[in-house]
């Protein structure tokens, strides 16, 4: 038999001014199962809490209802008190008599009546409460970092330096990501590779970091603290242990006409290749799609010339299973290419290039050794037009967002061009110049004032070729909106930053959500910007949204610290408000009929297929749903969804919710 205690708080005058608290307490005392009811000035005060604790002991209470402020305010406080009193904290419920009664209604019969109703409702609920205990989940203190760009590198190093094991997976043959392609970086104009390559080497040599390049995540299962991840190590066709990276293979390779990804297609590479001189690891892989051995079955030059016999054409993809406690997703971004722009020639004009291509032209290690030359004829352009917001902030192009980095790198590009060709002319078409950031606006001003880059506020409507020149038609919205035309030798489009081609499938593998542009979604836009909705999976860098280097790096460190927090104890505890699928004696085992339609409903993929097996024969006796308490966040959508009520939500059970409703309406209960 339930023995419920009811404690009505005056909250000074806050409640008692409009609610007849004595009456509420008296009425509560009459309710069946209520063994003790009292009202007091300040329930949350020490004496107030002591009263509760004493009452629980003295009257052997099996549950308590505190009629006071909102549970969002003091539920924790009173649950602690309940615990001190010797009952399970989840046997304490609050009736919200302040925020939702006394503060919103005038003193009246009705107001007091409402208070009584709410108390009656909570008494019914607490009668149905059952003891709950926080869920403890063991944590594997190894982190997986997906992506070896600057964000991934930063996160990996931070976690590794904190003394935890890190496994890094990079799909390219080398780590370094887009940053390794950049020439110089704003706002300091220091060379990208000079600051990046040391970190790349650090990753390769760090005792706590295991690096898998030319590898991709195949599948992710499990839950926070206990992920099971399958990684595909793509066949490199080169034995990394034997290879010394001498380079005789790629020097001799006959297939020399393959567009070089690292140089954004502005030069060629061989079929067996290391993406760039400072690659980590600095050992080649064979690009099978372009290798005559794999395509035509003949050649084998690299095998012949390799002094250590490291070439292995028979090598196959390998799938390895790893167990990690947390995952940092740093899969980076891509940019729109010039073929995305009909009005700028559908990518058919050779000298209309995108930002990354310009980076390579301007880079000392690039195809032109840092001399800015036209891809079409290798001439040094006398006039370059830069088009900012190419695709970005353009609804018609399906990209409403700002790509954030373009204003800055366009200024940088114009500057670098001017530094390299003093009498060259640089024009920038822009919508707005967004240069918020430390020393950012100063940087843009420098481009305008010191390097006299011509900024034209307006859009470019069309580019066409006419006798060897690119005619750029636009409008200057400041010079009394005159349409203008510039005969340029080269045009650089600051094309929109977009999510990777495979972002969607990656997100689906990880069970994390993503926005309509396939950028990964953070758990909360303001308060949980580096976590995802799947506990234990963090975000770093431009896979979440367009970011420049400082932003990517700071988010990476933030993600790393989230991981370290998770790794700070051997076990993590979670609220016991989770869904459970009922269990009963064989042969029924559970009322769940295993339709598994609920699996689709769960936002956290916490519902799994369970096969109940015969202990001896091992044959399947029943298929049912099972809720993974590690993943469940307790929304209860599955509960309302389950047709025959086989799933229930602890703390908000069907029994409780229904009796709340009945208690509320049928009076006297």
């Amino acid at each position, binding site marked *: 038999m339930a023995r419920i205690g009811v404690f009505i708080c005056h909250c000074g005058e806050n409640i008692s001014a409009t609610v007849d608290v004595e009456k509420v307490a008296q009425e509560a005392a009459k309710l069946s199962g209520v063994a003790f009811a009292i009202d007091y000035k300040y329930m949350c005060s020490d004496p107030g809490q002591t009263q509760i604790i004493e009452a629980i002991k003295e009257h052997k209470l099996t549950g308590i209802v505190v009629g006071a402020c909102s549970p969002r305010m003091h539920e924790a406080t009173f649950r602690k008190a309940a615990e001190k009193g010797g009952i399970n904290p989840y046997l304490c419920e609050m009736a919200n008599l302040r*925020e939702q009664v006394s503060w919103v209604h005038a003193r009246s019969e009705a107001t007091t009546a409402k208070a009584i109703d709410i108390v009656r409702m909570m008494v019914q609920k607490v009668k149905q409460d059952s003891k709950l205990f926080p869920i403890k989940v063991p944590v594997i203190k190894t982190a997986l970092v997906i992506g070896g760009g600057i964000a991934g590198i930063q996160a990996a190093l931070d976690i590794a330096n904190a003394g935890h094991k890190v496994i890094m997976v990079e799909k390219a043959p080398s780590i370094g990501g887009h940053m390794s392609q950049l020439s110089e970086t704003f706002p300091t104009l220091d060379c990208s590779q000079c600051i990046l390559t040391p970190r790349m080497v650090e990753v390769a040599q760090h005792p706590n970091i295991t690096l898998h390049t030319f590898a991709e995540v195949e599948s992710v299962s499990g839950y926070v603290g206990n992920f099971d991840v399958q990684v595909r190590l793509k066949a490199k066709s080169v034995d990394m242990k034997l290879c010394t990276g001498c380079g005789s293979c790629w020097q001799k390779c006959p297939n020399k006409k393959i567009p070089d990804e690292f140089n954004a297609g502005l030069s060629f590479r061989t079929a067996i290749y290391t993406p760039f001189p400072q690659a980590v690891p600095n050992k080649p892989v064979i690009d099978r799609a372009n290798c005559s051995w794999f395509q035509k079955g003949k050649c084998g030059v690299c095998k012949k010339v390799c002094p250590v016999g490291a070439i292995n054409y028979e090598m196959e993809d390998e799938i390895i299973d790893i167990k990690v406690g947390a995952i940092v997703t740093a899969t980076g971004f891509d940019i729109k290419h010039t073929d995305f722009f009909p009005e700028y020639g559908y990518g058919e004009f050779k000298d209309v290039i995108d930002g990354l291509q310009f980076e390579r032209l301007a880079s000392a290690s690039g195809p032109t050794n840092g001399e800015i030359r036209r891809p079409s004829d290798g001439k040094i352009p006398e006039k370059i037009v830069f088009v900012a917001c190419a695709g970005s902030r353009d609804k018609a192009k399906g990209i409403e967002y700002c790509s954030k980095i373009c204003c800055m790198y366009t200024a940088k590009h114009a500057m670098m061009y001017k530094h390299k060709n003093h009498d060259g002319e640089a024009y920038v078409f822009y919508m707005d110049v967004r240069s918020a950031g430390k020393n950012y606006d100063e940087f843009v001003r420098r481009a305008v004032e010191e390097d006299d880059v011509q900024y034209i506020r307006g859009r470019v409507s069309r580019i066409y070729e006419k006798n060897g020149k690119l005619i750029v038609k636009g409008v200057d919205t400041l010079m009394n909106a005159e349409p203008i035309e510039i005969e340029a030798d080269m045009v650089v489009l600051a094309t929109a930053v977009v999510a990777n081609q495979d972002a969607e499938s990656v997100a689906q593998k990880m069970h994390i959500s993503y926005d309509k542009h396939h950028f990964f979604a953070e758990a909360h836009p303001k308060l949980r910007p580096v976590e995802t909705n799947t506990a234990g999976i963090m975000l770093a860098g431009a896979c979440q949204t367009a970011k420049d280097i400082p932003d990517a790096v700071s988010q990476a460190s933030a993600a790393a610290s989230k991981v370290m927090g998770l790794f700070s104890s051997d076990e993590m505890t979670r609220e016991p408000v989770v869904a459970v699928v009922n269990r009963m004696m064989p042969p029924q085992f559970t009322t769940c009929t295993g339709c598994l339609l609920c699996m689709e409903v769960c936002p956290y993929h916490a519902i799994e297929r369970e096969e109940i097996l015969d202990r001896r024969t091992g044959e399947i006796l029943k298929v049912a749903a099972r809720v993974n308490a590690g993943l469940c*966040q307790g929304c209860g959508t599955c509960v309302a969804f389950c047709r025959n009520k086989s799933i229930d939500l602890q703390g908000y059970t069907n029994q409780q919710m229904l009796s709340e409703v009945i208690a*509320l309406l049928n009076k006297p209960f």
Partner: protein
Amino acid sequence: MPDFEPKIVAFVCNWCTYAGADLAGTSRTKYAPNVRIVRFPCTGRIDFMLLMKAFENGADGVIISGCHPNDCHYTSGNFHARRRWITFRSLLDFIGFDIDRITFSWVSAAEGRKWAELVDEVTNTIRAKGPFTEISTLDSSKLKQLFYDEITK
């Protein structure tokens, strides 16, 4: 019916509307005392049967409210709920239930005022409609009689 005071039950989610109702309190926004709030973790948790039960047990009107689309604390609970309501409404409408007695709404944690206005508005409409008797009178033999006449014709 002048002195009729409707009983209105509100099923709300913990993160948006319940917090919104709290905000109405902290900002001392007054509204009709006819509403009784039942707190759920998420609109996704609200079982359509609870609506039936509320009406059977004498509710005159029901409010269902949660986070605005895309604001759901659990990312998609409210989207699933929305489909459930679309379906349930069309069923109720088909069997001739007065669906105007059910009000669906999105009230965010910041919309204390919207909450207060919603409650007042619903209270007034329901007050105008009068008490809900269609279900409570169902089991009375009158209807049975009517039905037997019908088939014995």
